């Protein structure tokens, strides 16, 4: 068929779809195909669902507004150490159209939002001797909001942090301590220490552009507008980029024109996504103390345990997921709600099998098992389950989902059993 005939057919199809021409022959068949194929997508979203979602989203908007209004006075303290990498602010999407200006080239040099960066940084005090210099290697996946970094000082590992699925784990080898929190606010140092400067720079470029770009020999010096970190610290960045590669070589964070922190970027590379899983594993030695923190930084404390009847459990909203009265050949023996100061979780026991439903708080029993074993991600349906073997030999799987995340711990079942069992979980209503 010639191009002209194609265009004529496309016009006839368009006219038929617009109802301006009675479809016939091939056009009629194509109209039918299109209409049938799009039927599943023609569903209504109820007004109340829209309003509910708007209510759910609004606090996240308000948080941003509140943060923007707070004063900048905490800057100097917050940047004392300027270690470490990414959290909420790394989860962003490039929407800026590529241009030919310096900032567009600088953005492009870092790759799109989907690129995974491996960054080597040297952190130095702005005032010599204020704190020891250290080096840090960061792996950053801004699409998934995942980051991992290892910081070394005088050749010794002083910190390892993983940010994943909205949770942060900070391992301090010198203290034999692992701190787990659901946001950077759970940590004493706040968010300033937990934001990678390159991620922050990239976000600033994508969001606001520069207010000044000057060529000085083989480099450009970019000044970026004032930005607000998640814990309301406000900073101005001056970034030196290589005039050939457009990659950053030095990032300075400034307050009132005074440099308070200096991060030398030794290298920025991109790694394939397939290698990311290898870089995300944070394993801590057995015997490490685990502290779970609430958003406000307080230690997690158990407040109580309540036994629920089946009838009561059926009334919960969102509903719990359960395996029915019998699951993997074991009868349901109890349903308990465990309350902590940061939230609650539900524990369903089927003999030696425990099924957890949780969201804001990861049950400490589960956490303790999780951090001492490497997790294997396994696609399950349209989700990903994380399997691991606990130190006691039990198999555990976690599945993050809307409503409640779930976890199954079973001592005498295989991974195959559990995958099959996951498929049989259903809402308890």
């Amino acid at each position, binding site marked *: 068929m010639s191009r002209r005939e194609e265009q004529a057919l496309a016009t006839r199809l368009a006219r038929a779809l617009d109802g301006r021409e009675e479809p016939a022959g091939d056009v009629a068949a194509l109209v039918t195909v299109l209409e049938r194929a799009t039927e599943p997508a023609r569903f209504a979203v109820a007004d109340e669902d829209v309003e509910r979602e708007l209510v759910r*989203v609004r606090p996240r*908007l308000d948080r941003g507004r509140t943060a923007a209004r707070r004063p900048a006075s905490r800057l100097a303290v917050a940047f004392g150490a300027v270690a470490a990498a990414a959290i909420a602010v790394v989860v962003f999407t490039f*929407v800026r159209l590529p241009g030919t200006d310096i900032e567009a080239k600088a953005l492009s040099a870092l790759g799109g939002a*989907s690129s995974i960066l491996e960054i080597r940084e040297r952190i130095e005090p702005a005032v010599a001797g204020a704190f020891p210099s250290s080096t840090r290697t960061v792996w950053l996946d801004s699409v998934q909001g995942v980051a991992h970094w290892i910081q070394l000082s005088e050749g010794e590992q002083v910190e390892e942090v993983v940010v994943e699925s909205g949770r942060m784990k900070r391992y301090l080898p010198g203290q034999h301590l692992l701190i787990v929190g659901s946001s950077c606010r759970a940590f004493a140092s706040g968010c300033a220490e937990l934001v990678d400067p390159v991620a922050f720079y990239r976000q600033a470029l994508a969001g606001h552009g520069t207010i000044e770009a000057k060529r000085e020999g083989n480099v450009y010096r970019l000044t970026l507008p004032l930005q607000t970190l998640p814990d309301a610290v406000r900073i101005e960045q001056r970034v030196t980029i290589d005039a050939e590669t457009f990659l950053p070589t030095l990032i300075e964070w400034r307050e009132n024109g005074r440099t308070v922190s200096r991060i030398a970027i030794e290298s920025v590379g991109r790694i394939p996504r397939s290698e990311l899983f290898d870089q995300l594993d944070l394993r801590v030695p057995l015997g490490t103390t685990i502290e779970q923190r609430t958003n406000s930084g307080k230690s997690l404390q158990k407040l109580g345990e309540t036994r629920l009847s089946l009838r009561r459990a059926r009334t919960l909203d969102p509903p719990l997921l359960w395996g029915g009265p019998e699951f993997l050949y074991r009868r349901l023996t109890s349903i308990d709600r465990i309350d902590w100061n940061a939230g609650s979780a539900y524990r369903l026991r089927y003999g030696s099998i425990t099924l957890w439903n949780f969201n804001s708080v990861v049950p400490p029993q589960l956490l303790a098992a999780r951090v001492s074993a490497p997790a294997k991600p396994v696609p399950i349906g349209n989700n990903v389950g994380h399997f691991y073997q606990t130190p006691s030999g039990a198999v555990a799987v976690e599945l993050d989902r809307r409503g409640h995340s779930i976890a199954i711990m079973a001592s005498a079942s295989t991974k195959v059993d559990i995958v099959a069992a996951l498929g049989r979980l259903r809402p308890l209503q």
Partner: protein
Amino acid sequence: MADLGGEQRFRREQRDFDGLFRAHYPEIVRYLSVRIGSREEASDLASEVFLEAFRRVPGLRWRGRPVLAWLYRVAANMAADSLRKRGREVLSPELVESAAAEARDPAATLPEREALARALASLPDDHQLVVHLRLVEGYSFADVARLTGRSVGSCQMLMLRSARRLRAQLEQAGVRVPA
């Protein structure tokens, strides 16, 4: 079918986040449902699209295209990222279920509905967007052109190619769609 409006509406939507959300959230959910194969995930992802909008839309410049065009572009990017993250495209049982509930032809079989949904999900992104805007949301070809930044003729050509691809896929799956 909503009127896309001009610069005045663009300016209003830049200032009124709630209005923007109420006006366009449902269609972004519908679009993402097809792209990622799950209505539930689509609802979550659509909220992320609007959170991004909250941050970026006030800084957009008027270039003759509505805010909705920007929303679709961000939604398309997020859907692509989500699929990449997932590593493979999955046909959602719930989408097939919703098709079952709402199908015009009660005699349509589950395999046929699956094949239809799978065929639609397999279209290239730009084809899928044109089909969605015209067939699901009911925008005119002129509006589809405005939203996608293409000419009307190009959108019509994409529609023709989409229809042919869908038909070929269905034939391959052994589904006969009578005229």
